[in-house]
């Protein structure tokens, strides 16, 4: 027989002002199954909680109902108190007689009747509550970080420093991401390589970080705490164990005219290359698409046309037969940090976007992107840091910067602001002024957005001290005029046209997410927004978590971010991972669904409606151990307890612990018995 304790709270006078608390307690005293029923002024106070504890011991209660505020307020408080008194917390429920009764009705018989009904309903429910244990699922204390830009690097280091192992997977031959392409960074103008390279080396030398570069994620399955990841380590044609990074092969390679991705096509690189001097790992990659030998092989030639790199390598580390490798890794958490790419104004665009015909689709040689300007200004760049025109190598005396190219332009398919361009444009004008003292930089802008720490002062310095000329207005058209670029703009503040002859034009193009986010999102069942940025679980309150438990997100793959944002979100994601790894096992609320595998007919309707993919197929064997069918099983770690499967199951084989059909019907019956 159930032995339930009912405790009616006055809540000072929040409840007792309109509800006869002692009357309710008295009414419940002789309700079948109620062992003790009392009321008290402040149930959630220490003395109030002690009342509950004493009653549990004295009356050997099998269930507790506290008629007070909303469960969202003090359910945890009373469950903790009950467990301290040795009672399973999940047989303790709140009857909401404050927010949903005393506060919204006037005093009177109807209100008292309602209060009694509410308490009686919860008492009937508690009679059917089963004691539940928190769900414990095994946990692999290893984290996978996808993307080796500054966000991925920071997340990997924080997690590894926190004691867990990290697998860092980077698509490019070296980690470092876009930050490694920058010359100096705002607002401090410290050299990007100087603050980044130590971090990259730290990753490479960290005992708990396994680094896969020139690699991609092939497949992911499993669930929080138990992800099973397949990494495709693409063939480098170089044996990493033997190579010392001496660079002889690069010097020997005859095919040197391949446009360098790292230099944003401004410089060239050989077929076997290391993207930049401080690359980590400092091991070259053979670009099989452009390598003469492999192109020959592709055409079916038996005799290899080249092999200079292999000949030049004293440690014979070059291996043309090397194939892609598929590596399996078990991890408990995943951090997505795939970073961003830049919008280009060209004719071909991914669907939903359009280029800039009014700027000749970028086919004017001296119209370059912000990243290309960074490469020009960078000491390791194609021009060794000299800012010159890509067309004829002369030093430009008049450089025009155009803000909001793609960004804030719904007609071109991008309506958001890319956040970093106002700052890096100002930075570029400074770099330009520092290197070309008699040069004049002009910036066409709409609104300068400098909300970060020291940002406003930085842009004002570019204007006030380094003499950048800021014109408020957009440029309508650009065309080649002899060997300069005619920029047809307008100055809305002066009310005058602003038509300039520029030696070079720099376009501050919008930040875009990588195309890969879409199929990565599918692999991890993580949602992404209409632009392709990964969506977080809650934009304000859970920015670095995703709707998939155990998968976190950091850096510019979420939304346009500058380096401080990326570092902050990376460390936040890392702290979430470390928090998850703090226990040996993952503890989860036990309100999860359970399948009765004897009555399950294997229709898997539950699997179709489960938003979290928490249903697993289990083989059912007959007596001679042959598989004769499948039934469903709920993965306790993944199930979030929504109960949709319970209502969908045609054979009533699934129950949601804490909200079983028994309990709900008991509540209905209690409510409407007369």
């Amino acid at each position: 027989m159930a032995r339930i304790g009912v405790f009616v709270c006055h809540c000072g006078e929040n409840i007792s002002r309109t509800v006869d608390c002692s009357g309710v307690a008295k009414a419940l005293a002789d309700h079948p199954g109620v062992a003790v029923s009392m009321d008290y002024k402040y149930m959630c106070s220490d003395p109030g909680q002690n009342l509950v504890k004493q009653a549990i011991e004295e009356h050997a209660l099998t269930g507790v109902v506290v008629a007070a505020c909303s469960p969202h307020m003090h359910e945890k408080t009373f469950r903790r108190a009950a467990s301290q008194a040795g009672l399973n917390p999940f047989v303790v429920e709140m009857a909401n007689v404050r927010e949903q009764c005393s506060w919204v009705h006037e005093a009177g018989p109807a209100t008292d009747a309602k209060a009694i009904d509410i308490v009686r309903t919860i008492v009937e429910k508690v009679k059917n509550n089963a004691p539940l244990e928190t769900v414990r699922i095994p946990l692999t204390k290893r984290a996978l970080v996808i993307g080796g830009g500054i966000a991925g690097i920071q997340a990997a280091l924080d997690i590894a420093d926190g004691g867990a192992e990290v697998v860092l997977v980077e698509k490019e031959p070296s980690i470092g991401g876009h930050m490694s392409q920058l010359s100096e960074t705002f607002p401090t103008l410290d050299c990007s390589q100087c603050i980044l390279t130590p971090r990259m080396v730290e990753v490479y030398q960290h005992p708990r970080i396994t680094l896969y570069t020139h690699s991609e994620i092939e497949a992911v399955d499993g669930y929080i705490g138990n992800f099973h990841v397949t990494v495709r380590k693409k063939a480098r044609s170089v044996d990493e164990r033997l190579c010392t990074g001496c660079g002889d092969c690069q010097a020997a390679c005859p095919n040197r005219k391949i446009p360098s991705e790292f230099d944003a096509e401004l410089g060239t690189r050989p077929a076997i290359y290391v993207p930049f001097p401080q690359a980590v790992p400092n091991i070259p990659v053979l670009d099989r698409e452009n390598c003469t030998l492999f192109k020959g092989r592709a055409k079916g030639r038996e005799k290899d046309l080249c092999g200079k790199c292999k000949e030049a390598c004293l440690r014979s580390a070059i291996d043309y037969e090397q194939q892609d490798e598929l590596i399996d890794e078990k991890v408990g958490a995943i951090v997505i940090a795939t970073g961003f790419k830049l919008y280009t104004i060209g004719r071909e665009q991914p669907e939903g976007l359009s280029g800039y015909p009014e700027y000749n689709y970028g086919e004017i040689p001296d119209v370059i992107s912000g990243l290309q300007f960074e490469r020009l200004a960078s000491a390791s760049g194609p021009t060794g840091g000299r800012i010159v025109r890509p067309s004829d190598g002369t030093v430009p005396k008049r450089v025009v910067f155009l803000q909001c190219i793609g960004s804030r332009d719904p007609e071109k398919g991008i309506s958001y602001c890319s956040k970093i361009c106002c700052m890096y444009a100002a930075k570029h004008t400074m770099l330009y002024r520092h290197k070309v003292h008699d040069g004049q930089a002009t910036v066409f802008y709409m609104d300068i957005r400098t909300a970060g720490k020291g940002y406003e002062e930085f842009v004002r310095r570019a204007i006030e001290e380094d003499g950048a000329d800021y014109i408020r207005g957009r440029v309508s058209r650009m065309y080649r005029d002899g060997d300069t670029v005619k920029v047809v703009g307008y100055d809305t503040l002066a009310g005058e046209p602003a038509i300039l002859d520029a030696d070079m034009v720099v376009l501050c193009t919008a930040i875009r997410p990588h195309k890969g986010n879409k199929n990565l999102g599918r692999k991890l069942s993580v949602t992404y927004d209409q632009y392709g940025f990964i969506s977080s679980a809650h934009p304000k309150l859970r920015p670095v978590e995703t709707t998939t438990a155990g998968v976190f997100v950091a850096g510019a793959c979420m939304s346009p971010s500058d380096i401080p944002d990326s570092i902050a979100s990376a460390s936040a994601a890392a702290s979430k991972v470390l928090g998850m790894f703090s226990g040996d096992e993952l503890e989860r609320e036990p309100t999860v669904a359970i399948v009765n595998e004897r009555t399950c007919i294997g229709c898997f309707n539950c699997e179709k409606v489960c938003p979290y993919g928490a249903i697993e197929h289990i083989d059912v064997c007959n007596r001679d151990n042959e598989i004769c069918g499948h039934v469903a099983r709920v993965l306790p770690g993944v199930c979030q307890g929504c109960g949709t499967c319970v209502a969908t199951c045609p054979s009533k084989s699934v129950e949601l612990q804490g909200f079983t059909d028994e309990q709900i019907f008991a509540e209905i019956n209690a409510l409407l018995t007369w």
Partner: protein
Amino acid sequence: MSEMTEPTTEFEPRITAFVCNWCTYTGADMAGTSRMQMASNVRIIRLPCTGRIDALFIIKAFERGADGVIVSGCHPADCHYTAGNYHARRRFIVFRELLSFMGISNERVIFSWVSAGEGAKWREVVNETVERVRALGPFTAYHELASRQMVGGAYETEVELPDVREAPAEAGGAS
């Protein structure tokens, strides 16, 4: 003062509300914290998500004497479990046809979306439903069934069922 304190010669409908824990239940709490006065005819049953609401709950409520049922959860796209409310919506579109087949008029079942911040909207849903069902009068179709059900029914509850309510003249409500 509001009509609640009038002498209860008038019919007081009994409404059961199946609400989702994350949105409508929290919205009802918010109505409480803002002290929004409303009719006291509604009894709330909390479920994790509208996706969890089985059509049988609604029919059981009517069978046990409810005069009206409210089903309310998160707005589309707000569901804490991303898709629970979509399944509920699809399920209840089909269920509505079944209702009339089972002798329950569609007017007595009210579906609505109330978010955690819409306390005022919850009060409106409550007051409007009470008025609407009051106009429809008590739902008596299932009363005999209910009494027979209790004697030998599957869901034995220990509560002794007092005699079945008379016609509307003798208003229920008092314990």
